[in-house]
């Protein structure tokens, strides 16, 4: 030490970035869902005990705690009802690609027991979107469909094949049709 009289020590700073890599396989249920979706079909799975239809298939029923198989797969319609929604006014945080307000809606497909969350609703001004609105999937062209959004973490996504939902022009669904599905 050249300066033994100094009591002030400069702190040593260290930058240390951590990066973890994960490589995962899609489980069989998600593979079936993704393959059907690319073909333009929405696959669900009906529990034989409670008759609920889960979208996407899980290969089990979390309520009855029974295993389900591809034999329990069912196709549901690409039409449904908006059960709830919010209008997102995007702020420019890192990673946010949107610049204009957009709809973030829950859609209960006809034949399903649970909603698809986080769906865009297009073809109607955002301030006209409302619970009860009947909608239909706007499919991407066949050549643009992909398995985007499918993951072994979570239960799958329609984002790679369905760009948004559009009003069908039908009268609104009655409240009883969606009041148990607010999210």
């Amino acid at each position, binding site marked *: 030490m050249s300066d033994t009289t100094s009591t002030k020590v400069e702190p040593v700073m260290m930058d240390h970035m951590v990066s*973890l*890599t994960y490589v995962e396989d899609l*489980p069989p249920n998600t593979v079936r869902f993704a393959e059907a979706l690319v073909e333009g079909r929405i696959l669900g799975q009906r529990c034989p005990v409670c008759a609920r239809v889960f979208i996407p298939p899980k290969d*089990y029923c979390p309520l009855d705690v029974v295993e389900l198989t591809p034999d329990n797969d069912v196709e549901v319609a690409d039409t449904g009802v908006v059960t709830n929604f919010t209008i997102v006014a995007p702020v420019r945080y890192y990673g946010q690609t949107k610049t204009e307000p957009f709809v973030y809606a829950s859609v209960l497909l006809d034949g399903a027991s649970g909603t698809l969350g986080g769906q865009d609703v297009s073809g109607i001004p955002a301030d006209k979107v409302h619970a009860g609105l009947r909608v239909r999937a706007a499919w991407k062209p066949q050549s643009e469909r992909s398995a985007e959004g499918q993951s072994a*973490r979570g239960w799958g996504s329609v984002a790679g094949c369905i760009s948004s939902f559009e009003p069908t022009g039908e009268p609104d669904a009655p409240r009883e049709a969606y009041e148990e599905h607010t999210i």
Partner: protein
Amino acid sequence: MPATDIAIIGWSQTPSVERSALTEVQLCLKANLAAVAAAGIDRHDIGFTCAGSCDYLTGGPFAFVANLDAAGAWPPISESHVEMDGAWALYEAWVRLQHGDIDLALVFGSGKSSPSNPTELYPQQLDPYYLEPLGLDPDSIAALQARALLDSGKATERAFAEVAARSRRSAKSNPNAQLSGDTDADTLLAGGYVRAPLRSHDLPVYSDGAAAIVLATADRARQLVEHPVFIRGIAHRIEVHQPGSRDLTTSPSTTGAARAAGHNGQAIDVAELSAAYTPQELILRESLGLDDKVTVNPSGGPLTANPVMATGLVRIIEAAQRVADGSAHRALAHATNGQGLQHNLVCILEGEQ
């Protein structure tokens, strides 16, 4: 106060495989359904559920919450989770059953290691200033432990290889093992070092898998199954986190846990040890005072089937299996957490007296 006798009345494990296409919750479901069926109970009669797992393995945030689907969490159940091997979940359930107000508990442990890279992931459990930035992985810590053991004169590389060869031979009769086969120390010692002085046979496999156990109070257990396996004692002890602050050639926390579990040198027929690295079996044998008459890891142990976070729970299952089938009167199961045998649990199992 003497503990209330608790018995193991049902168990199941999924086969240990290198890569399963099933999700962790799907693996848990298979184990839980089979364990509950083996116990002959209705899952609605379970008073407490406890699980052990680590979200970092699959990289799924709150994966442990999703795993609850495998236990049936609606209507709401009384449950808990430990970010530890499932053997500690069993410990918590055992403590919970001591209260006396419930008589059945479900325990499960699960690990899906295949999506992650152990060399990259495991340093994250070390201190963030000195060891984690070095990227000190489990194989390297085990190599330091092995080197210390060799330098102490208590073991040889041949002794390590003999542990590996015996484990692989034993695993031939274990349908759940990932690795098995006939080999000998000479053949294994011809291989090169992975982390000197450790060769590949000294290192564990990494498996995807899940395991589950149903516990019952003694009276309920006798009603439900013909051969309940009683937990005569269970305890765990921990040492300091920094491996450089420990004598890695011995495991005083294992010795302490065994003593607290009531093991005072009585005859043990079978010991299932969570010795993921060959030198650790030698360290644990000495720390537990096990002589050559004890059959160690008849399943093949973690060198041949290693569903991380369930490996210790599988030790309890393998030990219980041998008590239930009469091949062991008294069995010892050991589980470990942390690095280089930092935290150890010992469970003593016996059949009906």
